[in-house]
């Protein structure tokens, strides 16, 4: 194919691009119709779920401890912004770096086991971090870190304005999503999928599977950390709820509900779970009960999730969800 043909093709309006464009426009216009704080919560959850899905959907590793990256990064960001006076972008960077290091250490240990064992090991590590969060002085135990300053981005964009905060979160979210897409469509991503589908064969082909798994784990942890860091800036709060194992369960629920291994599934799931929490928060424990029921229904009846069910239909129309 010559150069011209390629460029013509890359400029063509495909249904896929139309969908992405429509979603982007929707996201840009959304804060004028919907409460921005809710939207930001949804976006943070969506990023968290997308990070989790990178591991479950593309490497086949079910981590039951992703709250440790989400929650601990939130603490570090909050502490850096409040106590050390870091600017928001630097505080977030500190949170992400912490999550990456944490991911490297726990991932290195956890990938020695797979399947159910992997899930339990990650869960146990996450619980260890929960205890650290309860006891370490900088996390302020039950109170959490409150009143985190949002500050101003790069020194001149005031994030106390909800609208600019929203667009910042959206920009980070879109960039992260592009990054994840880049990962899963790269040769590296192909190897990850090969490991997911047939690990012994990947090994026999000469891939150092452990290294690939570990790198994917660290990437996923860092992105989960990014989500947690953003959340602590948005809500000006880092608390025990973010490191609790219920948060690890929630991210599994979001991904499962939306559709494992799809691009848009985790996002849809995240917004649904955020909506359940937001609109049912006054009903107390019913939130937990409803989440549990959805879990059971997902596992028993629609394992491919909401977006996953639509995927074959969309594929026929040239849209890859």
């Amino acid at each position, binding site marked *: 194919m010559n150069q011209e043909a390629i460029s013509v093709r890359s400029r063509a309006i495909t249904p896929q691009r139309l969908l992405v464009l429509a979603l982007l426009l929707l996201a840009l216009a959304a804060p004028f119709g919907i409460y921005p704080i809710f939207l930001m919560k949804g976006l943070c959850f969506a990023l968290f779920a997308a990070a989790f899905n990178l591991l479950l959907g593309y490497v086949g590793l*079910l981590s*039951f401890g992703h709250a440790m990256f989400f929650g601990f990064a939130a603490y570090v960001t909050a502490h850096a912004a409040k106590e050390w006076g870091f600017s928001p972008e630097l505080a977030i960077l500190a949170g992400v770096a912490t999550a990456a290091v944490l991911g490297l250490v726990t991932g290195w*240990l*956890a990938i*020695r*086991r797979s*399947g*159910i*064992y992997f*899930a*339990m*090991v990650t*869960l*146990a*590590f996450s*619980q*260890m971090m929960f*205890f*650290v969060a*309860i*006891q370490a002085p900088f996390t302020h135990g039950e109170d959490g870190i409150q009143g985190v300053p949002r500050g101003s981005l790069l020194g001149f964009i005031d994030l106390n304005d909800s609208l600019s905060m929203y667009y910042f979160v959206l920009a980070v979210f879109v960039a992260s999503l592009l990054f994840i897409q880049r990962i899963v469509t790269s040769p590296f991503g192909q190897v990850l999928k090969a490991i997911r589908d047939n690990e012994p064969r990947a090994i026999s082909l000469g891939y150092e599977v452990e290294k690939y798994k570990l790198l994917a784990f660290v990437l996923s942890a860092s992105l989960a950390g990014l989500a947690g860091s953003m959340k602590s800036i948005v809500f000006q709060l880092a608390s025990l709820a973010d490191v609790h*194992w219920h948060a690890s*369960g929630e991210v*599994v629920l979001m991904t*499962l509900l939306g559709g494992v291994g799809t691009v848009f599934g985790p996002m849809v799931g995240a917004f649904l779970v955020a909506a359940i929490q937001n609109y049912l928060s006054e009903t*107390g*424990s*019913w*939130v*937990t*009960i409803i*989440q*549990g*029921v*959805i*879990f*059971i229904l*997902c*596992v*028993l009846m629609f*394992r491919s999730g909401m977006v996953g069910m639509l995927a074959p239909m969309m594929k026929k129309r040239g849209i890859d969800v």
Partner: protein
Amino acid sequence: MTLLFGIPIQALFGQLLLGLINGAFYAMLSLGLALIFGLLNIINFTHGAQYMMGAFVAWLVLSHAGLGYWAALLLAPLLVGALGILIERTMLSRLYKLDHLYGLLLTFGLALVIEGGFRQLYGISGAPYAVPEELQGGWNLGFMYLPIYRGWVVLASLFLCLGTWLLIEKTKLGSYLRAATENPQLVQAFGVNVPVLVTLTYGFGVALAAIAGVMAAPIYSVNPLMGSNIIIVVFAVVVIGGMGSILGAIVTGFMLGLLEGLTKVFYPEAASTVIFVVMAIVLMIKPQGLFGKGS
């Protein structure tokens, strides 16, 4: 006051006893988990909630029916075990052909529903449950004071663990069970009803959790979150012990309880994380666990 390693001897033995008691619960719960995992290949995330339900049955039959501890010790495993059998028949049995992770996810969802339900009904403050009259008081052993109830819990748990171990390792039923974990089709071909075996095993494992719950009621107060607090530690115990092994579950449970008790004496800050640290070390040296076979 006598000192041992620079610690008052009474404090040391007091903490060791506390550790032994926690260890007894770890052992009973991880035993049930190991049993269920062995035959169903499912990590029973609902185990914590089922333990909590055992404690609640004890409390409910006392406050509503006036039945005491001993009746509860019989009723709780029957009721909660029956509920477990219902769960296995209606839900878990649909998942055996799928990836084992789905079992984990389903039981996690169930745990959320059960815990949320109890929280909605009873709040999170918890209810006290008195030690049964026959087991009140204690013995002065000279170097420490041993509350009778706690001694009873340790003995009863040892007895339960030993009994289960003998049942699995030394009886004909146990040999069917072990064979069914290796090759269910073949065992079925010999005329053993494997699905019934699976159902009963789940019921039995759940019943063990419920018994542990009843025993826990007078020690820890009865509250909806008691299960979710202990279950993660039990998971770590299970990873350390090696999932396939019944003996591993029992030995590791008691051992880690004691270790936790010792840590409370010498370095209290680390007491709640020591088990996870041990888990990390064991994973580094022997990823399949101390008593595990293969990967």
